[in-house]
């Protein structure tokens, strides 16, 4: 049971005298969220830190990253900051995307989409110029009231689908920075439900959207990351046996009398054991601490047909009639793991109270066998063992999975993604630019940042010059699919000199990334080059902070290390799932 705010404030009174190591947290935000401060301090205290929290200026996230000062006239964060929490609520940054989605034209949507991603990138860059603090970016709350109701989840271009794409792209940006993590508020909301998470009264009173229960869950979630990074996550789980691993008491009920089965009421213990086995595979050390005769316990492990937990999963054990605190200490010594990395589960209040008293560093959980149906959650929701380390074994396993799926992908080109893309019924049309399309093409060169190979910005007049120039070709791509006409979403500018066609510009609107449209486009571009009887196509890639995702585009399509392609020898084919690819 979580402590109330008053209880937490009582606990926090101990902090100034406890001489704990400091942990500096800066909170950047576009909403009121100061109510989280005592919770951050509380979870920091539980992990052995004294948190010093500074809060940035309201809706000044980016400005605070450029030396903004707080109320105390000191910079909100500095090089000695340990952790930066960012609360970036979408509806405060982009009301159109969050609340007015149905009113957006495709151009406005694209513009807002890019604006969000630009802001994220700029903020992270500004932070990294000054600090290597871990950044926890909170987001992206999905709309509670879906703009199209039940239709939302069925359409790839609905608000929900769009925001999920935005989230994926944001996470992509995070992954390209060091120590920047995405804290999914949807997970926090799921834990306590929307009605408990939001308190609209305080939103309208002081722009504070979250209830105290909400900021409690958020702070807990934040500390899963902080604990993992500081090595404060737990490493060993000590388990009682009777009424914890199985229902009943082996000494009294015998191996046939205890409750443990895949189906029926004994299933709660079976499921709990499966979670324990999962923890074992995650690298957590499992230990037994039971007041029993050893032979009785091992008989269950070895002989019970539904026992999932086996001897090989157990790293250490103390099965005897001595006190459990002493036993846990022995386990700690034999495993060479500190007691502060231990979690102890038992169904007896006597045992849990005693261990709590004698070994306060151990995290103690009391379970109620009458509620064994909830045992699975006991560990699941706490995140005690969460780690950000991917061990060598995990890496190896992942490599194996990846190799397998790669092989399967090559064998059968129509994977489920291709089938989905085929169902979209995409029609690509590529044409030479004319008067009507010049403005849109210029606009795309000015706005597009992500899928843009050279990021050269042109005005309407510049594009007109290219169009009128005999040694240049300007091409645009329009996309239609089952759900509508996206209009002009791609542009290419070719410059011909001698036997080479130089690709001055190759860009795609971010809305159509991830569908292979670029490959279809490139195949048409090569047809355009063929028309001029030119043999060599040369691409150019000018790296910016925002277009790293396309750095390998040309080589993926068969261009050499100098980004040249001889179209007499090789060609680029549009993926088969397009309904039509027309070069006019």
């Amino acid at each position, binding site marked *: 049971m979580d402590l*109330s*705010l*008053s209880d937490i*404030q009582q606990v926090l009174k101990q902090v100034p005298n406890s001489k704990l190591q400091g942990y500096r947290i800066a909170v950047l935000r576009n909403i009121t969220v100061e*109510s989280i401060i005592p919770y951050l301090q509380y979870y920091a205290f539980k992990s052995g830190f004294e948190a010093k929290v500074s809060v940035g200026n309201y809706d000044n996230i980016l400005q605070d990253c450029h030396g903004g000062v707080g109320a105390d006239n000191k910079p909100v964060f500095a090089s000695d900051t340990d952790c930066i929490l960012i609360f970036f609520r979408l509806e405060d940054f982009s009301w159109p995307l969050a609340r007015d989605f149905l009113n957006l034209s495709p151009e406005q949507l694209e513009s807002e989409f890019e604006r969000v991603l630009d802001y994220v990138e700029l903020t992270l860059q500004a932070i990294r110029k000054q600090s290597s603090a871990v950044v926890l970016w909170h987001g992206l709350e999905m709309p509670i009231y879906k703009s199209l109701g039940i239709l939302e989840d069925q359409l790839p271009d609905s608000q929900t689908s769009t925001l999920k794409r935005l989230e994926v792209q944001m996470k992509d940006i995070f992954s390209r920075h060091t120590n920047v993590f995405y804290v999914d508020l949807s997970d926090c909301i799921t834990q306590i439900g929307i009605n408990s998470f939001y308190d*609209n*009264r305080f939103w309208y*009173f002081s722009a504070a959207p979250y209830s105290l229960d909400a900021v409690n869950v958020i702070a807990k979630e934040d500390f899963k990351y902080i604990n993992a990074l500081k090595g404060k996550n737990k490493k060993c789980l000590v388990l009682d046996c009777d009424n914890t691993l199985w229902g009943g008491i082996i000494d009294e009920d015998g191996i046939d009398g205890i409750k443990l089965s895949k189906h029926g009421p004994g299933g709660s213990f079976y499921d709990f054991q499966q979670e324990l086995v999962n923890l074992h595979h995650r690298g957590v050390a499992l230990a037994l601490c039971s007041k029993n005769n050893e032979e009785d316990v091992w008989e269950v492990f070895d002989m019970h047909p539904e026992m999932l937990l086996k001897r090989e999963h157990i790293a250490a054990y103390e099965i005897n009639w001595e006190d459990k605190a002493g036993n846990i200490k022995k386990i700690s010594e034999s495993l060479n793991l500190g007691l502060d990395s231990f979690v102890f589960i038992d169904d007896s209040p006597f045992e849990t109270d005693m261990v709590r008293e004698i070994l306060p560093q151990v995290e103690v959980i009391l379970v109620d066998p009458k509620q064994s149906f909830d045992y699975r959650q006991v560990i699941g929701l706490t995140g005690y063992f969460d780690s950000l380390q991917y061990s060598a074994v995990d890496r190896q396993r992942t490599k194996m999975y990846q190799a397998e799926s790669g092989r399967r992908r090559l064998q059968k080109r129509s994977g489920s993604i291709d089938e989905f893309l085929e169902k979209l019924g995409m029609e690509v049309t590529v044409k030479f630019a004319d008067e009507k399309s010049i403005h849109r093409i210029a606009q795309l060169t000015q706005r597009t940042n992500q899928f843009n190979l050279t990021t050269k910005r042109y005005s309407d007049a510049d594009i007109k010059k290219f169009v009128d120039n005999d040694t240049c070709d300007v091409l645009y791509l329009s996309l239609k699919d089952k759900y509508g006409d996206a209009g002009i979403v791609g542009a290419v500018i070719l410059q011909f000199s001698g036997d080479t066609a130089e690709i001055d510009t190759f860009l795609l609107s971010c809305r159509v990334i991830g569908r292979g449209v670029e490959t279809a486009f490139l195949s048409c571009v090569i047809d355009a080059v063929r028309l001029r009887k030119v043999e060599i196509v040369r691409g150019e890639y000018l790296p910016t902070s925002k277009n790293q995702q396309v750095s390998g585009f040309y080589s993926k399509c068969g261009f050499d290390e100098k980004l040249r392609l001889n179209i007499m020898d090789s060609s680029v084919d549009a993926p088969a799932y397009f309904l039509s690819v027309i070069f006019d």
Partner: protein
Amino acid sequence: MDVQEKVIQVLVNILQVSPDKISIKTTSDDVEQWDSLNHTNMIQALEQEFGIRYDLEQVVSMLSVREIIEATKGKLGL
């Protein structure tokens, strides 16, 4: 403990002031720590304590101990 005593105790805890600073006559103007953040915390702590939920109008207007006690009693049906 009656409603008045409980209310005062919650305020003392949330505002982190000594008990002699809060009485039935106290208003938000009298206590420096009674800012909008602590006001919000106070409302939620009172709601947790009494198991009630105030209206938005009450949230906005409960700016004195007397008004808090009145609103609380109202919600408790007293």
